[in-house]
């Protein structure tokens, strides 16, 4: 296939290169131009847009909805995504993910991330194995302790599992700004590969301490609730995008919300969730094109505040 370099591609490429120079760990993938970030622990590149499954993939045994969600996942992979995040807490989401991966024969394309969510600190391996069977993957890329539930026991087991090659990375999660002191303490003292937290244009508390600490300690950051569970759309969808949105690489609100997040230098990946193929396409738009720089990010935050 012949590749013609258009002016748009050229400008987008130059912008991405400029950003790469400004933000360490941010690389433009030459094959697809997808924006990737390195996982600090290994240098492995990860596309900055991942996918969440809370509510969206909990469809039980509904074959029609399983087929539809499979199309959402297919769109995600086709547009360059890899990291999918789930949890045993999300009802049938682990099961549905397993079925969708089988239908797409996409196990080699997924960066499989789920969580340990049990108060029984001796049940880490058992729960990981139950989830692994549901996903039908050889092993998980990432296991995270969900909301720090039973973290002491789970973390020790996860360390052993990682040492034995049963999982590649380990991490902890929180959301809605909960337990940030505990998260900070663990980030400062434990050998974590990943931390997952809530960050979006309205919930910016993590900019103060957790994101700088993640950079300092070389911990990859996964951002959950990038749309505040969808409420950012309900609040701002009827408002116009600023005239300068194109300058920061945004064609729609989804890109505006997501690019604000992934342009923070400490962020490795953001995991918006959706039930819809058209929304997935919009969200994956944020994986390409220029990202805002520091002053443009501030302008974005100010614009949203002014609405």
């Amino acid at each position, binding site marked *: 296939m012949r590749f013609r370099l258009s002016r748009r591609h050229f400008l987008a490429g130059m912008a991405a290169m400029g950003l790469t120079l400004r933000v360490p760990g941010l690389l433009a993938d030459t094959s697809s131009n997808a924006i990737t970030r390195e996982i600090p622990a290994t240098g492995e590149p990860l596309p900055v847009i991942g996918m969440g499954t*809370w*509510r*969206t993939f*909990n*469809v*039980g*045994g*509904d074959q*029609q*909805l399983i087929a539809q969600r499979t199309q959402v996942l297919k769109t995600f992979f086709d547009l360059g995504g890899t990291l999918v995040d789930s949890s045993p*807490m*999300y*009802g*049938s989401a682990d*099961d549905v993910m397993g079925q969708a991966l089988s239908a797409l024969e996409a196990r080699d394309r997924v960066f499989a991330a789920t969580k340990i969510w049990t108060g029984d600190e001796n049940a880490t391996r058992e729960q990981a194995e139950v989830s692994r069977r549901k996903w039908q993957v050889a092993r998980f890329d990432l296991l995270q302790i969900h909301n720090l539930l039973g973290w002491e026991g789970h973390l020790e087991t996860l360390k052993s599992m990682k040492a034995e090659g049963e999982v590649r990375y380990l991490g902890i999660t929180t959301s*809605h*700004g*909960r*337990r940030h002191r505990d998260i900070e303490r663990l980030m400062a003292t434990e050998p974590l590969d990943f931390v997952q937290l809530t960050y979006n244009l309205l919930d910016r508390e993590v900019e103060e301490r957790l994101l700088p600490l993640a950079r300092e300690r070389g911990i990859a950051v996964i951002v959950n609730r990038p749309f505040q*569970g969808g409420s950012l759309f309900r609040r701002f969808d009827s408002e116009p995008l600023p005239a300068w949105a194109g300058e920061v690489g945004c064609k729609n609100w989804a890109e505006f919300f997501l690019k604000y997040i992934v342009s923070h230098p400490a962020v490795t990946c953001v995991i918006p969730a959706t*039930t819809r193929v058209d929304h997935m396409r919009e969200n994956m738009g944020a994986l390409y094109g220029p990202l805002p720089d520091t002053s443009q990010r501030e302008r974005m935050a100010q614009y949203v505040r002014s609405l």
Partner: protein
Amino acid sequence: MDWSSYSLADFLMFGPEVFLRLYSRVNRDFWPWPVVTVLASVLMAWLLTLGELWARRAVLALLGMAWVCSGAGFMLRYYGPINSPVEYFGWGFIAQGIALGLTAVVWRPESASPDTSRRRLIALAWLLVVCLLPWLVVMESGEWQALGLFAITPDLTVLASLFSLLLLPRRLRALLLLLPALWAVFSALTLWTLGMTVLLIMPLATLALIPFAISSRQR
């Protein structure tokens, strides 16, 4: 854990579309069972008008079967996989169904059946509830296949049961109203969080009627 930072929505694991489709899926998958349950509902209305002991026993036995079916079918197979607490309720429904079945067999009534006019009133109320309320799910979903029928779906099974339980003595009745009360609270909170105000009518009506059902005399 700081529970004050949690809202009900944080515990809701699924969206309205998945929930409403449970009704049409169960009706389709169990076809022609929905027809059988409608016929059984009408039969129960007729039995409720009769005063004989065998009729009262038959009502309780059919009611027991309705609880088992709704627990084992809708709750354990369809609703439980997307909402884990429902699995526990599903087993509770099966246990309650068995208890009602046993009551039907071993129960020796100390008092006579309610008088004729009261029996007819109970049967009429029963018929209205089992015929009209299934359409609430249709109103909410816009799909006529989503009828929320007695003996299949829990909200209507619970609400309709209140009328038949009036046949039983007060103490036994109070015991058998415990699970309906718990389910109605759980269901009301779920439907409230899903924003399904039309469907809220059933658990709220159950909660409003339970005090009357407990205090009501047998005749």
